[in-house]
């Protein structure tokens, strides 16, 4: 950093001075009196003279605070003593940052305040990433966690000067936490989730900020978390560290399901895109969310008329631009052309004849890695895109989705050809993409429920029927919660004689499987 000669020493002296002033009984309300004296000292020492010096000052202070924390971790015998020693300096430093931010520029000039906040957060993030790089397994999150969460709490105090820049403050923190996402700072992952799920953080981003303007940022942070967890959850055995993080994630999702179900409804698509397909309970938890003002009819109600439900024809909000995920553009053009004109037949025959190759040229194939043959985001986007186009087409005709209205259409051609031509792995992912739309009563749930039942009824091989049953069953046998749309689809499958469900060999393939189906059937009848 080639700091100017003497700056580190000067900075350390000033920091120690501030810490002492901060802890004096007469520091005044929120240390304002002490701050007044201290700013004079900072000016005398010239550390506020230029932007470069301010940056160096904060980096050096951050590094001193981190060093003090590591020394406390190494020297103090108990967690309490470590924390009281380290926080003695850290909390004072956070207060100084907060005061400098609140008082930078004139009162109503939010820009200078937010710029200074972004600078400081960037410095803390930079020091953290470098520290993690240098210390490796010796890295400890304590100092960074304390600085970030206490600064967040200080800058979310009920004060006029802060209220006017609150959205920028939230944006700055979300941006920093994205930079420090677990994939980049795995050593900080637990503290990261602690901050992201802190009651004030959730409250500000999901409840207090008007017009749900914080929802997109919060969704991005959860996607960062799912992306990090995905490879470790992909295999059934979880290590203790992963299990801890996974369990913590479930707790956070339960709070969101209980308090902000509409948030999970709106972003379910983006979440399910990155949650590994075998992570069934966590995905069910997200898919089970439904708007609080909606009353779900009991799926086990005899002769439930799903298509008579008022909300069943309403399209749910999907805040991910899934159509843009259909790449390359030529693929989207060919797809649109086929959906519109049900031609050229080559498009389907390509799908049908060289679905593997075609699938690869749809670059659904991304790598020869076993179990990683398919571009899941593309497959998910394709299914949802074709489905929404189909719903639009059906509703334009004044119809509603049913076994009769969805069949023999360009949309079902696509689904049929994927069902018939993909291999077991590909078909499993394809059926999952459909099952991920089985949620609360809405037009997507309704349509995709019909698609699944239609694929079952018109399957040209029992393997397809067995796989559809498997995908539904594995989502049903896990612990609660279960999405409403999943339950009504499965009940229809085992109840409606048109599917001849009970005649299939695989239904009786093992006593416990047979018993399971019967127990579900009993609770339906």
């Amino acid at each position, binding site marked *: 950093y080639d700091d100017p000669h003497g700056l580190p020493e000067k900075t350390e002296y000033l920091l120690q001075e501030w810490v002492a002033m901060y802890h004096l009984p007469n520091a005044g309300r929120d240390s304002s009196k002490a701050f007044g004296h201290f700013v004079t000292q900072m000016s005398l020492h010239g550390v506020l003279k230029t932007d470069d010096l301010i940056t160096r000052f904060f980096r050096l202070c951050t590094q001193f605070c981190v060093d003090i924390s590591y020394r406390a971790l190494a020297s103090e015998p108990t967690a309490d003593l470590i924390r009281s020693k380290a926080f003695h300096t850290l909390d004072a430093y956070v207060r100084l940052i907060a005061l400098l931010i609140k008082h930078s520029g004139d009162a109503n000039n939010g820009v200078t305040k937010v710029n200074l906040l972004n600078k400081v957060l960037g410095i803390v993030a930079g020091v953290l990433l470098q520290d993690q790089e240098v210390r490796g397994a010796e890295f400890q999150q304590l100092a960074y966690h304390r600085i970030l969460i206490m600064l967040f709490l200080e800058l979310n105090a009920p004060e006029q000067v802060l209220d006017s820049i609150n959205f920028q403050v939230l944006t700055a923190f979300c941006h920093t936490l994205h930079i420090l996402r677990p994939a980049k700072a795995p050593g900080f992952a637990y503290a990261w*989730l*602690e901050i992201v799920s802190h009651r004030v953080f959730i409250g500000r981003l999901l409840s207090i900020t008007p017009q749900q303007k914080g929802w997109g940022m919060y969704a991005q942070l959860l996607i960062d978390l799912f992306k990090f967890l995905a490879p470790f959850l992909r295999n059934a055995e979880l290590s203790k560290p992963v299990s801890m993080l996974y369990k913590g994630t479930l*707790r956070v999702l339960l709070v969101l399901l*209980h*308090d902000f179900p509409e948030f999970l409804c709106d972003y379910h698509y983006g979440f399910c895109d990155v949650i590994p397909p075998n992570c069934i309970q966590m995905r069910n938890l997200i898919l089970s969310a439904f708007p609080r003002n909606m009353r779900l009819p009991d799926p086990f109600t005899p002769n439930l008329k799903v298509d008579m439900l008022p909300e069943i024809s309403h399209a749910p909000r999907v805040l991910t631009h899934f159509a843009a995920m259909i790449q390359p553009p030529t693929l989207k053009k060919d797809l649109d052309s086929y959906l519109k004109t049900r031609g050229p037949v080559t498009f389907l025959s390509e799908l049908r004849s060289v679905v593997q190759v075609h699938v690869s040229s749809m670059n659904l194939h991304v790598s020869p890695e076993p179990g990683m043959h398919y571009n899941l985001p593309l497959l998910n986007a394709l299914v949802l895109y074709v489905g929404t186009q189909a719903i639009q087409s059906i509703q334009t005709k004044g119809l509603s989705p049913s076994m009769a209205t969805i069949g023999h259409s360009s949309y079902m051609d696509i689904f049929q050809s994927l069902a018939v031509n993909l291999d077991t792995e590909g078909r499993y992912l394809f059926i999952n993409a459909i099952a991920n739309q089985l949620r609360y009563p809405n037009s997507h749930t309704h349509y995709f429920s019909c698609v699944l039942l239609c694929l079952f009824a018109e399957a040209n091989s029992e393997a397809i029927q067995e796989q559809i049953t498997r995908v539904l069953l594995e989502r049903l046998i896990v612990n609660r919660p279960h999405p409403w749309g999943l339950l009504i689809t499965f009940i229809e499958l085992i109840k409606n004689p048109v599917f001849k469900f009970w005649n299939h060999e695989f239904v009786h393939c093992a006593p416990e499987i047979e018993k399971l189906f019967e127990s579900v059937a009993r609770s339906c009848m």
Partner: protein
Amino acid sequence: LGSDLTTLGLNLNSPEPLYNNFGGPWAENPCRPQDIDFHVPPEYLTN
């Protein structure tokens, strides 16, 4: 089979929002009133 999500220390039937007292991803219990920092009138900070 996943786990029984009612055993994670969250009162999922609570009529009140959970996040106000959420103890964090590793907490087995919600926060108690004495765990929650509150912006009380400065006069209350009798030290």
